[in-house]
């Protein structure tokens, strides 16, 4: 009768002041066990100070096929980067 435990995505804050970062996933019956398992699977060597777990099924991802429509618009706006503008050397640091 056994049914598979749901999949959770694990995010770890490596140090104070940094963002949580996705490190992998694991199976667990509930959120509490997911945190416990994440501790054992992903932080055996002091890799973190905080853990987030999210059910994988709750994550909404952009589709690879949407890459064009999603990211194309920003590709053409090179002026958003400061290096787009030439500042004369005499002006100094800006």
């Amino acid at each position, binding site marked *: 009768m056994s049914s598979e435990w749901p999949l959770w995505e694990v995010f770890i804050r490596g140090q104070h002041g940094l963002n949580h970062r996705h490190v992998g996933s694991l199976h667990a019956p509930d959120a509490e066990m997911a945190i416990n398992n994440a501790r054992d699977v992903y932080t055996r060597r002091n890799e973190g100070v905080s853990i987030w777990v999210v059910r994988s099924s709750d994550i909404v991802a952009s589709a*690879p096929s949407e890459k064009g429509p999603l990211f194309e618009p920003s590709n053409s706006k090179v002026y958003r980067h400061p290096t787009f503008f030439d500042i004369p050397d005499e002006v100094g640091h800006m």
Partner: protein
Amino acid sequence: MYAQMVKTDAARIKGLDEMDPQERVFQQRIDTGQKIEPKEWMPEAYRKTLIRQISQHAHSEIVGQLPEGNWITRAPTLERKAILLAKVQDEAGHGLYLYCAAETLGISRDQMYEQLHSGKAKYSSIFNYPTLSWADIGAIGWLVDGAAIMNQVPLQRCSYGPYARAMVRICKEESFHQRQGFDILAKMVRGTPAQKEMVQDALDRWWWPSLMMFGPSDDASVHSAQSMAWKIKQNSNDELRQKFVDQTVPQAEYLGLTVPDPDLKWNEEKGGYDFGEPDWSEFFEVIAGNGPCNAERLGARRKAWGDGTWFRDGLTAHAEKVAARRAKSVAAE
């Protein structure tokens, strides 16, 4: 290696001009070193080959806990016991990283377990040998994990993102495994003559099976060529084996041990050792399920999975109950 003789479904390697446009774009991305990510288009054979390779790799990590677990309660000191426990726990972790990587390709965890327990999926031949003395634990870390590192370091550059990232984590931890093994042996060879003899005996038994881990020569294998074209394999089996021998022989000499190969000789011209051929008939017997411990290893896995059923179900039932209670109290508000 941890994944041996992985089939690719390829009869021969296709040229770019023979591929349909989608596959050509895919191959060109791989050729330029781009990573392939889970939901992106990939040829069905690439997906299947990766599932075979990653799941076999994961099974090896999991089954690999068994020969070492045999010595946790027999470790000579409390410190050695704690170290071995940490090492075996790492192997479980490695198995879990890899299972997750394989799951991104559309196979479920239970399907993979089923394939392992039914004998359909393979795991590395090396774990079907017994651990007879404490020196075997040293030999496994030094030789088996040493051979694993040879293979896993290049796999960090594998074309499939989740597999490559799992390998980065694994490689970071693997060096601890090899060193703790070498440290066990370095201590024993400085001990009594009987202890030194145990180490030599362990090397005598583990040397050839370790060389077999790389698999038979695959220079003529279409599967190997296809895996290389897909960048899920970077070096030939013989290349890696040569590298392993060249690295390991001086370490054996440092320990004052004799490598059990009468044909082993430094070859100045090639800048590496010449060495004998492993007994491949033994390798194929072990792969076919007839090694010294195949039945015991699979039996232990099946028993652990079966005995744990009530516990897994219990946790699931508890989680469902708590969720139902919460939903009810939310509805009542």
